[in-house]
């Protein structure tokens, strides 16, 4: 299968506003320090790492909300590393994103119907009342939800709206950035099984960013492990869990508290990294 994304030696640095001197430019912090990988089409790839690993920055570079400072990102054969906004516009439909916090990614002043319909209209993918209802139905929400405001929904329902908005455009790529980290276990399970089903049905290519490896295991075909802006390990999901090659990956896996009795678990030292 062909690769949808080809990322080579990706660098990205952001200005550090806290260290900005009174006069002159702020010093830049290097967040991504040379990443190379590919995302195969039609597969779910997990991107995992702890806080400060740069996983969210990487995600935002993939959908070009951020512009890389070095290296290249090729999407479907086209170099999008430094494409300016107007040239990106036609590609936007294919580069969709589901956000971590559905409360802040859904404008509180718009109805659910409007939130889902607006991108559809912009890209000429419909957006009529019936089409919005169909999109909501696909994520398991009744059509009547179109008239509601985001704050009237539960966390799980909001995240479904976020998914509906993304898939309504039939994009080639979806970035899912920590989409279940704010949810209860029961809604987390619902949202993940929904995404899993949609990915299988529509053959979606998804980059699934998470700090939680146990969620990755269910959903992803391959995994990329990040630490401090570098790739520590990458490979097929099963291999990575069964025989992690890096100590960091092993530490990440071992630190997950499984919901089963294991008296020795707390005593086992976490590998310091």
């Amino acid at each position, binding site marked *: 299968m062909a690769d949808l994304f080809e990322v080579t030696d990706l660098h990205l640095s952001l200005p550090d506003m806290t260290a900005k001197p009174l006069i002159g430019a702020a010093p830049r912090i290097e967040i991504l320090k040379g990443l190379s990988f590919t995302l195969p089409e039609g597969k779910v790839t997990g991107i995992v790492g702890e806080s400060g690993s740069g996983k969210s920055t990487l995600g935002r570079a993939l959908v070009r909300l951020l512009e890389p400072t070095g290296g290249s990102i090729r999407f479907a054969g086209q170099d999008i590393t430094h494409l300016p906004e107007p040239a990106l516009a036609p590609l936007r439909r294919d580069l969709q994103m589901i956000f971590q916090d559905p409360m802040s990614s859904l404008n509180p002043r718009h109805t659910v119907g409007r939130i889902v319909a607006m991108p559809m209209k912009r890209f000429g993918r419909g957006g009529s009342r019936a089409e919005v209802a169909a999109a909501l139905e696909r994520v398991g929400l009744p059509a009547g939800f179109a008239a509601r405001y985001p704050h009237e929904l539960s966390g799980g329902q909001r995240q479904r709206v976020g998914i509906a908005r993304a898939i309504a455009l039939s994009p080639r790529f979806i970035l899912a950035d920590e989409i279940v980290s704010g949810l209860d276990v*029961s809604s987390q399970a619902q949202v*993940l099984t929904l995404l899993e089903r949609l990915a299988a049905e529509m053959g979606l290519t998804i980059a699934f960013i998470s700090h939680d490896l146990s969620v990755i295991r*269910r959903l992803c075909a391959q995994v990329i492990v990040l630490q401090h802006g570098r790739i520590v390990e990458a490979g097929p999901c099963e291999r990575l869990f069964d025989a992690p090659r890096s100590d960091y990956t092993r*530490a990440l896996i071992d630190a997950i508290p499984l919901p089963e009795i294991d008296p020795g678990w707390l005593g086992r030292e976490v590998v310091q990294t």
Partner: protein
Amino acid sequence: MTACLEILGLDAAIRRGPRLLRNVSLSVAPGEVRALVGESGAGKSMIGKAVLGVLPRGIEVTSGDILLEGQNLGALSPGLRRRTVGAAAALIPQDPLTALNPSRRIGPQITDKLVHLLGWIRARADARARELLDEVRIRAPERVMASYPHELSGGMRQRVLIAAAFASEPRLIVADEPTTALDVTVQKQILRLIAELQARHNTAVLFVTHDLGVVAKVSQSVSVLFAGKVVEAGPTEALFRAPAHPYTRALMAATPRYTDPFASLQPVPEAVLAGLRAEVAAEDAAREARNG
């Protein structure tokens, strides 16, 4: 052995509003960790706040008793209650960033309670703080005590808060989701630290969490909550071996497990939720009947 904390038929509600805790009873013995587990809105944090007397404004305890070391807190005057709770209990909060005052150095924030509530002299309190920071494996206690919260990492801040909680030698610690904001590797270190200190000082711990994985690793007993009602309680080992309540089983099936990815992450069945709602309604009806 008498319980360190005993809660009997505790009810709390929004003033003239809905019920938030429904007839909650539980006890924690010295040296025991009891987990309170449930989803958001289950009232698990509310119980800890009721014990410490820090319920948000507009929420009040409507009936039931809280006994701390055999003393009924409801029978005390507010001032005496505050001193009693302050001397016997402490809190490890969820968010280490908002729990520390950003404009004060770490040292005084640990010793405040010792000096002001327990009347220790400054030098003794400082010595105690250094000792505790050493116990939570902070390598340079002096330097940390002189720094400001933003100069420490999230894990370090949580260690400071653990040190602060244990500093007054409390009999009971309420740990309110103490690792939710942390990375997994840091979480494990912090859990281990709490377990170590708790065992060494024979402290009773009320451990509030949403994560059944954490429950399995740190607690000896557990109460499962839904809508402010304890739906199942018992020794942790027994509960994981043979969960009795359908909701407990559903929560376990919903919790992700990398060792068994396809048996986990099961959504909670609608029938289970319907059953829970019926149970809650029955409890509300029973209270109506009791109150006439």
